[in-house]
């Protein structure tokens, strides 16, 4: 059942064969289901919410932000209707402040650190305020950055995701010429192909990409994959520096019997297809879906399965709730969307003949089987090694300035050690790498 075109419809009529089909819901229902998860704040709402910020000294929210955004500073500017200044305070630290406002797990980052939690158990809505400040600037394409005098240096950025684009933008502002080598049709990486659709409606990922490129000095070469269309050696000889933001392109396997049956699907592939499908009623989904995994991708596929019309969705994680990388908010979102979460249940076998019919789990207290028309694997990704780069647990080792073990090669985002699969961390890696690259190029 693995497919890439998203248009094939599979209908199983016998009891042996799974119930997987498209058009489970009407177009109106699908549109309502995939609408913006959080409505943006109106001006009144934003002003009232901004007033709740205490303007803390050495603010805990800023300390908790992987990109060090001066959060009380940008909120102060919202209070005085200084939206451009507010957006600049955000975007100068995090050029993807617009996307991060939508997808950051703020409940474990800035909003968890907010002192209002201690006061009244209700943090300032920092994510929504950040979106309020950045949306009008990004939508209008208001340029807030200038480029430094040309350095006559050229840097290759491999990967068009958050790490690569962040690095490219910072390098461009610092006066360097950048070429982005991007594997896909579009820039954005997981912002475009991975994030749950209801978190980034109205093609925001591409609007943000356009805003980033508007700084100029960034050339984009799509359909250019490292190791296939271009080699690291060529890039090292042709450019003054190379940044790798190549993510984790390979989905991990379960390593259990029956994994190759039809109906067992990699969640990231299904989501990539979902994100690129205009009419989501055409996406086939099982009546009963089992998702294996405990991270954000597992939540995203479980919730979106429900939104596409799956009647029963089980998310099964092999360890306890405290080990899940999906935040409490995301877990709650899944549960209120009708997803049943099971803990401490490692899968032992995929059942079925040609098609999957269920999954067997082995727990401390015994075995159980969950019937399934579709099984999604969402247990993480890994990268293939690149010759010459030191890896640790399948991820690239980098120093504080994001430099790899190879001279002149930096890396960031999900592909490096310390990457935590968050857009905001990838943006920070790209930024730090650009600063380090700039320093080295100017020294050297």
């Amino acid at each position: 059942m693995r497919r890439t075109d998203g248009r094939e419809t599979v209908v199983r009529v016998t009891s042996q064969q799974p119930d997987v089909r498209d058009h489970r819901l009407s177009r109106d229902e699908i549109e309502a289901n995939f609408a913006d998860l959080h409505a943006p704040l109106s001006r009144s709402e934003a002003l009232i919410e901004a007033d709740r910020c205490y303007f803390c000294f050495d603010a805990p929210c800023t300390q908790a932000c992987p990109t060090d955004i001066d959060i009380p500073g940008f909120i102060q500017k919202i209070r005085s209707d200084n939206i451009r200044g507010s957006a600049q305070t955000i975007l100068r630290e995090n050029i993807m402040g617009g996307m991060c406002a939508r997808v950051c797990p703020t409940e474990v980052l800035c909003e968890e650190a907010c002192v209002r939690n201690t006061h009244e158990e209700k943090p300032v809505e920092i994510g929504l305020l950040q979106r309020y400040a950045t949306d009008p600037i990004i939508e209008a394409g208001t340029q807030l950055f200038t480029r430094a005098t040309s350095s006559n240096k050229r840097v290759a950025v491999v990967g068009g995701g958050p790490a690569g684009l962040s690095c490219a933008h910072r390098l461009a502002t610092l006066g360097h010429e950048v070429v982005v080598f991007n594997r896909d049709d579009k820039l954005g990486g997981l912002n475009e192909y991975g994030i749950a659709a209801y978190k980034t409606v109205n093609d925001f990922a591409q609007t943000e990409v356009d805003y980033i490129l508007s700084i100029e000095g960034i050339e984009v070469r799509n359909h250019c994959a490292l190791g296939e269309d271009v080699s690291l050696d060529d890039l090292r000889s042709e450019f003054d520096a190379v940044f790798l933001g190549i993510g984790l392109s390979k989905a991990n396997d379960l390593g259990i019997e029956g994994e190759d049956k039809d109906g067992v699907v990699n969640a990231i592939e299904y989501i990539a297809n979902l994100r690129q499908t205009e009419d989501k009623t055409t996406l086939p989904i099982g009546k009963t879906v089992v998702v294996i995994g405990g991270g954000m991708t597992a939540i995203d596929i479980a919730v979106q399965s429900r939104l596409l019309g799956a009647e029963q969705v089980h998310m099964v994680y092999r360890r306890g709730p405290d080990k899940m990388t999906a935040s409490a908010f995301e877990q709650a979102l899944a549960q209120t969307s009708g997803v049943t979460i099971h803990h401490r249940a490692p899968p032992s076998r995929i059942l079925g003949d040609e098609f999957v019919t269920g999954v067997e789990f082995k727990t401390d207290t015994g075995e159980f089987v969950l019937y399934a028309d579709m099984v999604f694997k969402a247990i993480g990704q890994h990268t293939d090694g690149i010759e010459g780069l030191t890896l640790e647990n399948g991820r690239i080792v980098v120093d504080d300035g994001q430099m790899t073990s190879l001279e002149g090669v930096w890396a960031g985002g999900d592909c490096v050690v310390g990457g935590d699969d968050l857009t905001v961390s990838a943006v920070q890696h790209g930024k730090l790498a650009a600063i380090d690259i700039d320093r080295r190029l100017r020294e050297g």
Partner: protein
Amino acid sequence: MADLTSTFLGITSPNPFWLASAPPTDKAYNVNRAFEAGWGGVVWKTLGEEGPPIVNVSGPRYSAIHSNDRRVIGFNNIELITDRPLQTNLEEIRQIKRDWPDRAVVVSVMLPMNEASWAKHLPMIEDTGADAFELNFGCPHGMSERGMGAAVGQVPEYIQMATEWAKTAASIPVIVKLTPNVASILPPARAAMDGGADAVSLINTINSIMRVNYDTLTMYPTTDGMGTHGGYCGEAVKPIALNMVAEIARTRETSSIPISGIGGVTDWRDAVDFLALGASNVQVCTAAMVYGFKIIDDLVDGLGTFLDDKGLELKDLIGHAVPSVTDWQHLNLNYVEKAVIDQDLCIKCGRCHIVCEETSHQAITHTVDGERHFEVIDDECVGCNLCVSICPVDSCITMKQTSDDAAEKLAWTAHPNNPMRNTE
């Protein structure tokens, strides 16, 4: 609940809350609604001379300073005195007083500096059955350009003169309403007393321009592109009013005159402020114009409950805090307080640290043993109360006395550093 019946210059009202002379008391319709809501009295919006009615602007008359959630903090107006014919007002006042005999109905008047006008108009007004006059020597805009309102209130001799004319023409009590747009409130208050006033009321509004319009870069608001200063009122002016009330109440020469307190009264605690600092009743306008007449419920039962809790009667509260007001030079310089931060209540916002560090005395930590921790450094703390004032958590930072009660009191008047000290 405590009896809130108030007697001011012999005029009784069921509570000490009167609506001040302003748009809410402009006509019978509003006043009827106010009395139905429970207000103790009204000061009818200022009447002028008989003749062609006053003309108001038909552009904006009001504007406000808002918090971000649009709470009105300060309020400004350029409305003039009543723009309705004198006879209409007189008929309505007569009817209101007949319909509401238990409520106070005071009439505000503003007349030119010409005794004949006072002699002519005051008896006409008194004939309605009104309980008292309030002389409007306070409006700072419009009428002051015509030699009335604040133009009179800023010259003590004029206050005395007009008050004498009013006392001659009137047989009911005369209250003189004072303008705050003066260097000291005491000369105008003394002038009112010298003219024979039965009471003073204060404050009227403060000269003010609210802001500019950020699109047009003209002042805001404007009438056809031009604007003028107005009178400022609302919660923001209360401290200014309280000081002026207390000055009159604590000064020997003026302390005997009854005071009707006005300026930013919004809830019952504001009324406690005015009453304790020497006012015998309070007048309210802005809060009613922001929320409607229903606020009288909280004013009445809030004050009543407070008096019950304190075991006081209304008359005991009046002037209660006046003896605690003095000049700076009499404050005890040997008394020492220091701030104490309750670590259980502290939410670690760090505002106390940064304001103390950057704008005061570097007396609050930010890190202790590597942890985010805010604590007062007693040796540096001068007891300024800045941290208490800006802490977002109520009662988290408090001031504790550290000096010995038995220590000798030492005021500036006797301080060794004072070259003018009293050496006796």
